């Protein structure tokens, strides 16, 4: 089973208490500590990092990839940062702020691309804007070995609610042009499958909640399980332990039972797993400890 470490700004997670939050954030804001976490995950068999890349995470991944043959699956754009800027600067101002952070060559490239879509940009077209912001972030990821490109869940859920197929097809086309596989992160995999139909096949991986408790499995665990069974190779399990309420070994057994090829582990799970004694890797290459 493929193990994937999920990295995103630690401020964007839920924690049991404020003290736990500050402890985790203080630790995971430091590139060195993030790098160490990646190493822990690697020792446990992780060969891919699903990441919303901000500066500390980028620095850590650069250091990690110097030593390890592990792929980055980038989630773009960083919508938390973008929404924060939206409040202050408005749509155009938030995009402009990102643009001004680009290297001069990227500015020229992105500027030319935006000019080609000027009418749609001026109309505040949702898909065009989302893809432009994603493009700007991608320009900053060039130094990383990125093999898969995932659309940020906040954009994904809004587009799923509105049935905006062109955002998904446009995103998949971008990934294909870059020689990357496209992916989705969503809490609404049934709606994604219903909206995209055959185009779902353009997304090599769909990360969705999958755990024995049915936690976050919308609209229901049976409905999600039925979907996963129709195309098990495409779905990766997120939140396998239901917020820490299911033992990792039981969670992995459940995911394996559904035939899913991989599971996404958050930093807390990796740290917890790393604290457990290491056992020889199983025949299927599953190095995670329950």
């Amino acid at each position, binding site marked *: 089973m493929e193990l994937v470490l999920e990295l995103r700004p630690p401020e964007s997670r839920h924690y049991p208490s404020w003290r736990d939050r500050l402890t985790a954030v203080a630790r995971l804001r430091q590139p060195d500590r993030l790098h160490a976490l990646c190493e822990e995950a690697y020792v446990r068999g992780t060969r891919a990092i699903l990441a919303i890349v901000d500066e500390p995470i980028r620095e850590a991944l650069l250091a990690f990839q110097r030593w390890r043959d592990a792929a980055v699956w980038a989630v773009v754009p960083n919508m938390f940062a973008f929404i924060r800027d939206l409040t202050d600067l408005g749509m155009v101002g938030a995009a402009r702020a990102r643009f001004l952070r680009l290297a001069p060559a990227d500015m020229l490239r992105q500027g030319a691309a935006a000019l080609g879509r000027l009418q749609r940009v001026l109309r505040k077209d949702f898909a065009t804007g989302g893809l432009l912001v994603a493009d700007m972030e991608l320009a900053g990821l060039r130094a990383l070995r990125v093999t898969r490109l995932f659309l940020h*869940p906040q954009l994904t859920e809004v587009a799923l609610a509105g049935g905006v197929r062109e955002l998904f097809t446009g995103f998949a086309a971008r990934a294909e042009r870059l020689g990357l596989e496209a992916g989705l992160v969503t809490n609404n995999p049934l709606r994604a499958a219903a909206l995209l139909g055959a185009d779902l096949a353009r997304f090599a991986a769909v990360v969705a909640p999958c755990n024995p408790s049915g936690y*976050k499995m919308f609209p229901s665990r049976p409905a999600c399980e039925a979907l996963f069974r129709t195309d098990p190779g495409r779905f990766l399990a997120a939140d396998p332990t239901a917020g820490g309420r299911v033992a990792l070994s039981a969670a992995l057994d459940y995911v394996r039972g559904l035939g899913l090829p991989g599971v996404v582990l958050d930093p807390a799970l990796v740290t917890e797993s790393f604290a457990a004694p290491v056992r020889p890797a199983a025949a299927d290459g599953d190095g995670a400890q329950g």
Partner: protein
Amino acid sequence: MSVRPLRAAVIGAGRMGMIHGHLLQVHPDTELVGFVDPDTTLASHLASQGLRVPLHPSVEALYAAAEPEAVFVCTPTHTHLAVVRECLRRPVHLFVEKPLAATLADAEAIVRLATEAGVMHAAGYVYAHLPIVQRAQELLAAGALGEVVRFTAHAYVSEVFGAKQGWFFQKEQAGGGVVANMGSHLLFILGWFFGPIRRVVATVRSHFSQVDDSAQALLTFASGVTGLLDTSWSMPGSQMLDYGLTIDGRNGTLVLGRERILLHLLSPTGAYDAGWSEIHASELPADAAFDVSPHIGGESFYRQLTTFVDACRTGRLPFCSLAEALNTQRMIAAIYASAAAGTPVDA
């Protein structure tokens, strides 16, 4: 027999308006029939998000074109009263985004108008619809803690670390700063749990913006429960609202977080033994078919809409009615009044 979906329109095409628009399209029991916003150039932006309903420049134009049974008021806070007054020229059910108004007088007028119109109404305090919050309320209502004595609460988010622009950071338009906007989520929950507010002692401070960026309030409820709320949107470490509430009663303590309740009981109550128990959100039914915002409100947005639709269908006011939100508004007003006067204020 299938029930016809509730026909609803959204007034205000900002961020919250769009979220409600999406939910109204997704929910099987609702039908989105239109948007209202004076900036009609937003029509193409809405359409590009899949919100493909007419955008009208006024409520009057909406009513001329469609017959909504309900309206969702998502305009800037200071306009809520005027918008509600205009909407209630017809008997439509009312959903008003939080906070109810920029002033207590406006909020009282809104509740009076809605009551006189005899319509169903609700306010957008979405966190109260999280299953884990609702379970905490059930435990308290069932008397699990015995007589509730005191509480401590916090609501923090990392949002304001410099000068800010826009109506959201103008007191006259937004009704205040962190207290009125982020902290009010928790104030609503406190009012729902403990009843009408009686007295407040508070301080507020502006660190970066023109409005309050942090506040501490000692709240006394008519039920006798007292407690301390600490809130700030200038706390590093959390991109989403992080709240926590610890409630002490004569039979134990309940600690409410985003995903779990820790319960310590001195003597067993209902399904819970004496000693520590943990209730995790994963053990509770979510009753939601769509998660519009996984990292922020999560399934609570969908559940909030279900609650409102149920009220409209049954004619029974929901727990999140505008009258309940008026209690929150009284707390907001009393916090600001106490902070300004430097003395305790009766709400």
